[in-house]
């Protein structure tokens, strides 16, 4: 670049000669130079602005195009993403406490027809009826030859049936995939599991919904895809449940009972290890509810939870425990149980019109004296008795995780008079379910705490608020033990396991009111084992049992429910891992003599 000098000598000399100011030339040149510099700077800046504008234009065009693309295209799962567990759409399994399957799903097919595609509708109808005798042939003929375009035939098909339908060779018979709920153990724990059926149905899939039991209670949770197929773990133990049902069925048949129920509960956690109600049903093929007659006669009726009965003398120990807790008596306080005793004009009698005379509190429970507990109840008073039973949970349905639990609302007297107080102390006038009784007895076994029965597996003890002192609980447990060793439940002794419990025999009330039946009873045995370190409560209830081995029929719990419960404990305790406390060899003595 050639720089023009600011003071070119030729022009300066020329200007001096003419007498002009040479500085004007310099200023003039300076101005021209500055103008030139300004022009170059502007053009450079303009160029830069242009480049910037082009870049911004390109960037925004790309963004715009991408947005348009995203908005207009179909959304797709990102394929390259590292996915661990994929979403599992099917209903979650139900397993027992050791992971054994109680309910699962199975792929199967449904059968439907497109009559307009059929080649020989009449023959198809005949062949279908041969495979599925429950279908009505005339109806099928009418459906297949009429105007209908779509006919549902069967909701579930076995693989064999599917093959047979294939063999008809009719193109108008079509299969749709189905996921069905399967209960592989059949009737086992049927009242807990309930059952499932199809909700909204389409050709390609159908919704499986729970219709009863825990399937309905946890319906939303089981269907939640976010579970990722994690099974629902119950507190039940499949083996124990099977044994309990077996023993209960044997006992029920042997004693000619029309129904039976049992509850086995962990006293620390409230976990229900087994809960059985007989007669039962197969949840794979759930029977329809009865439309007439007594609901309690249906196999669907859960006697252990819904069946509210007057549970008889099993209640006596609550009165005794409360009297001990309030400090009114101690186990050796002697109370006169001789008659006659009249409360509000109503005579309180003993079983078989016996008269026990003066008895200690402990013996009142052992001999099961109505008048003895009645006197204890009178000294406690109706208000305190109500409050205690309320805290034990006898006023509300047990919140067990099955929908039927709501129906197990105890029946309470409308007015809690002194008479009701006395009759309730020996288990008449207040109806509750065997599950209530299990929850109540658990308080004696765990040192006086309330526990809520639950069907879900727990990780540790779930002791609730304290209901009675540890001392009272231990004294009550001693009394329960004495009932078995010296009292009405002598058949309840199981070698190796010290069983404690209380029998209860209650006359069944007539359904239309008007007193009680003479020869229909509910026998209950509420037991705790082993009493030296209580772990479980077991309630066994038999409906209308009668023991006929003697000269006259016997209907007391000591002859019916107790032997059944004892057999159950003998079979179940080893399965629960309880070692019998039997010294087979006296090793200590041998060691001592070798001194």
């Amino acid at each position: 670049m050639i720089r023009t000098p600011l003071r070119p000598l030729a022009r300066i000399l020329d200007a001096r000669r003419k007498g002009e100011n040479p500085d004007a030339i310099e200023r003039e040149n300076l101005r021209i130079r500055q103008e030139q510099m300004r022009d170059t700077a502007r053009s450079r800046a303009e160029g830069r602005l242009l480049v910037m504008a082009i870049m911004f234009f390109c960037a925004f065009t790309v963004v715009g195009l991408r947005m348009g693309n995203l908005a207009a295209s179909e959304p797709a799962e990102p394929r390259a993403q590292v996915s661990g567990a994929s979403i599992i759409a099917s209903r979650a399994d139900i397993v027992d406490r050791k992971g054994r399957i109680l309910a699962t799903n199975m792929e199967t097919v449904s059968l439907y027809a497109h009559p307009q595609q059929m080649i020989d509708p009449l023959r198809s109808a005949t062949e279908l009826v041969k495979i599925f005798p429950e279908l009505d042939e005339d109806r099928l003929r009418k459906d297949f030859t009429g105007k209908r375009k779509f006919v549902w035939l069967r909701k579930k098909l076995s693989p064999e049936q599917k093959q047979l339908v294939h063999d008809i060779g009719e193109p108008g018979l079509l299969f749709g995939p189905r996921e069905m709920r399967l209960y592989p153990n059949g009737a086992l724990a049927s009242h807990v599991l309930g059952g499932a059926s199809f909700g909204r149905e389409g050709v390609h899939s159908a919704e499986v919904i729970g219709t009863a039991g825990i399937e309905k209670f946890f319906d939303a949770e089981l269907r939640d895809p976010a579970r990722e197929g994690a099974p629902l773990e119950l507190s039940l133990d499949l083996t124990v449940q099977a044994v309990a049902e077996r023993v209960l069925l044997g006992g029920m048949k042997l004693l000619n009972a029309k129904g039976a129920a049992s509850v086995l509960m962990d006293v620390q956690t409230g976990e229900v290890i087994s809960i059985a109600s007989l007669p039962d049903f197969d949840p794979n093929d759930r029977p329809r509810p009865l439309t007439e007659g007594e609901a309690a006669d249906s196999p669907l009726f859960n006697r252990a939870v819904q069946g509210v009965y007057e549970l008889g003398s099993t209640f006596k120990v609550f009165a005794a425990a409360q009297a001990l807790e309030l400090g009114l008596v101690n186990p050796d306080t002697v109370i006169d149980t001789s008659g006659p005793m009249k409360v509000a004009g109503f005579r309180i009698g003993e079983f078989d019109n016996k008269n026990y005379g003066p008895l200690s509190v402990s013996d009142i429970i052992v001999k099961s004296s109505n008048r003895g507990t009645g006197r204890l109840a009178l000294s406690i008073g109706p208000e305190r008795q109500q409050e205690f039973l309320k805290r034990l949970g006898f006023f509300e349905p047990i919140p067990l995780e099955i929908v039927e639990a709501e129906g197990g609302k105890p029946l309470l007297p409308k007015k809690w008079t002194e008479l009701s107080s006395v009759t309730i102390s020996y288990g008449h006038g207040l109806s509750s379910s065997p599950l209530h009784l299990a929850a109540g007895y658990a308080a004696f076994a765990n040192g006086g705490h309330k526990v809520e029965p639950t069907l879900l597996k727990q990780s540790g003890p779930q002791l609730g608020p304290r209901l009675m002192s540890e001392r009272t609980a231990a004294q009550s447990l001693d009394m329960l033990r004495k009932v078995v060793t010296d009292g009405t439940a002598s058949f309840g002794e199981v070698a190796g396991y010290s069983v404690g419990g209380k029998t209860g025999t209650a006359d069944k009330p007539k359904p239309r009111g008007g007193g009680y039946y003479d020869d229909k009873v509910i026998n209950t045995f509420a037991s705790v084992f082993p009493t030296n370190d209580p772990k479980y409560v077991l309630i066994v209830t038999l409906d209308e049992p009668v023991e006929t081995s003697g000269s006259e029929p016997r209907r007391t719990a000591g002859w019916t429910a107790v032997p059944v419960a004892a057999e159950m404990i003998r079979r179940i305790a080893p399965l629960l891992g309880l070692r019998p406390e039997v010294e087979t060899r006296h090793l200590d003595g041998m060691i001592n003599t070798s001194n």
Partner: protein
Amino acid sequence: MRSLLYVLTFLTVIAAAFWAYHENYKTQAALAKAQSVRSDISDARARLAVLKAEWAYLNRPDRLRDLVEVNYERLGLMPFEPDQFGRVDQIAYPEEPEDDLPITYPVEISSAGAQEP
């Protein structure tokens, strides 16, 4: 100097394009493989569910009880009873094996003439 730089840059671009092309195809292949593995997993899961259901069905207590009754003579299985609990000290120690077991029936063993299965 400058032209060498241009040539080198051009070659680098070519190489990068070549590499990207290959990577793209490898990614596509990996995605396709992942897809098929995923469908295998879901098939396996379905099969597993059926097998589990079948296992549970075959092991249902009713069936096992019947099998035990049918095979009582052969198996002699009885329900678990409290008196079956033992103590460790009730179990005898195994007898010490003798140091040199006497060989009573010596048999010649040879691999000559043996054929691979």
